[in-house]
């Protein structure tokens, strides 16, 4: 169909951009509050040229990488254990399911008091945010492996290394990757929120500083970059997810 060209996705962002430009031009809001897109673009280019944006970005991304790696690995281990051990489930499941309902944002004040406003607190919050979705998805993914798979493995007397590597892992991985994807997007959002509140670098801090100096153009750059980074991270994992589950019928 002509309407569904590979560039169809561009239509909605362009429409939003146009609307933004039109509203800015109409003068409904003061020009320093609703900055026209072109000026935001110039600020973006300037921030790039000075290297300021890259600096903030690398600050944010390294926090994300550190916290996310720790949190999701712990989640993977805990989720597997929770799925396999009746004892662990009996002792920990209710607590786990309660804790995972607490929004990360609600923990910020307490974590700031405990860990200070430096790096630790942000990394811990990101790790916490990543931990729960990954643990939950892993637990459910491992539990959902059909018993019949294990019976077939028993009939052919497969060693446990083969059982884990060729049967249990491939069976559970699509569910786990979905959990990781959810975790990564949430961790990113929460990290930028933390940086807004307390940081000396990072995208969130850039936004907050700009707001205080009424540089709404820089705020807008920060907002758009945050969105694009989040999208890119999610897109990458979505591709991975599809590759790992291409054996499924859909």
């Amino acid at each position, binding site marked *: 169909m002509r309407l569904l060209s590979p560039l169809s996705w561009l239509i909605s962002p362009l429409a939003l951009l146009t609307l933004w430009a039109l509203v800015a031009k109409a003068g409904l809001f003061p020009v320093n509050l609703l900055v026209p897109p072109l000026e935001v673009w110039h600020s973006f280019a300037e921030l790039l040229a000075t290297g300021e944006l890259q600096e903030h970005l690398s600050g944010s991304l390294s926090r994300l990488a550190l916290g996310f790696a720790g949190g999701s690995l712990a989640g993977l281990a805990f989720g597997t254990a929770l799925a396999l051990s009746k004892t662990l489930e009996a002792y920990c499941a209710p607590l786990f399911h309660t804790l995972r309902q607490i929004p990360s944002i609600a923990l910020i004040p307490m974590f700031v008091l405990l860990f200070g406003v430096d790096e630790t607190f942000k990394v811990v919050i990101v790790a916490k945010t990543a931990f729960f979705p990954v643990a939950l998805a892993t637990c459910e993914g491992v539990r959902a492996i059909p018993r019949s798979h294990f*019976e077939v493995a028993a*009939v*052919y007397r497969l060693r446990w290394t*083969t059982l884990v590597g060729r049967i249990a892992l*491939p*069976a559970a991985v699509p569910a786990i990757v979905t959990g990781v994807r959810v975790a990564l997007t949430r961790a990113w959002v929460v990290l930028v929120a933390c940086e807004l509140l307390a940081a000396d670098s990072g995208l969130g801090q850039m936004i907050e500083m700009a707001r205080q100096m009424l540089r709404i153009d820089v705020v807008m750059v920060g907002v758009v970059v945050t969105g694009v980074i989040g999208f890119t991270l999610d897109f990458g994992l979505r591709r991975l997810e599809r590759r790992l589950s291409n*054996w499924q019928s859909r």
Partner: protein
Amino acid sequence: MNAIAHPLHPSVDTGALTICGLSKTYALKGRPVKVLKDIDLNIRPGEFVSILGASGCGKSTLLRLIVGLDQDYQGQILLDQQPVRGPGLERGIVFQDHRLFPWMTLQQNIALALKNHVMPAAQKDRLVAEHIDLVGLRGFELAYPHQLSGGMAQRAAIARALVNKPKVLLLDEPLGALDALTRVRLQQELQRIWIQERCTVIMVTHDIDEALYLGDRVIVMDANPGTIREDLPIDLPHPRERDSALLQGYKQRLLGELVGH
């Protein structure tokens, strides 16, 4: 106990299965339920035995015990005079659902069954290819299970079970989930494959035609608890004609017994 079983076919001398006083009890809501009671069965090497019975008569449980997936029973199961303990490659099984791993190709699925055999890779490849040929799936080596029809997937499962050259092949309602036409076609295939391989086969089914068409013997089971009601030898050489008068006669008799008209 019966005398030492004689092989049915001169070329086969292993795969004799002896079951003595086999009983199995499940705990259902804390109360013991007897699913199998005092089963005695002597199966000769290379024999094709059909086990016929209504659902719930414990016939699938019997296969699970023989294959070794369930080791909690009373009585004895001997393969060539050796007690059976746990699963072993000399016993293969095909379940009602094909149980192929969806993330592996047909070839990989069958090769996985050979994983614990010590032999050169080239020989494994050859065995896999031979068995894909045997079940008529050449050209589908790289297909994933979801790309195969139900009948093709079940053929693949049969190839996987046979690739280890088991002495005993257990079939747990292998064609039960297929449509009527595919089922008839696969029954012919099974007969051809069995004539070629000549391993001992025990097939559980609730299809009288299927049991009679394929079995050298038809064992009829009663339920609650599962016991052997009748052991019917079908004295008709293979390959058989589906509409043989002898088979039709047995069919009427079994229908009468099982359904009671």
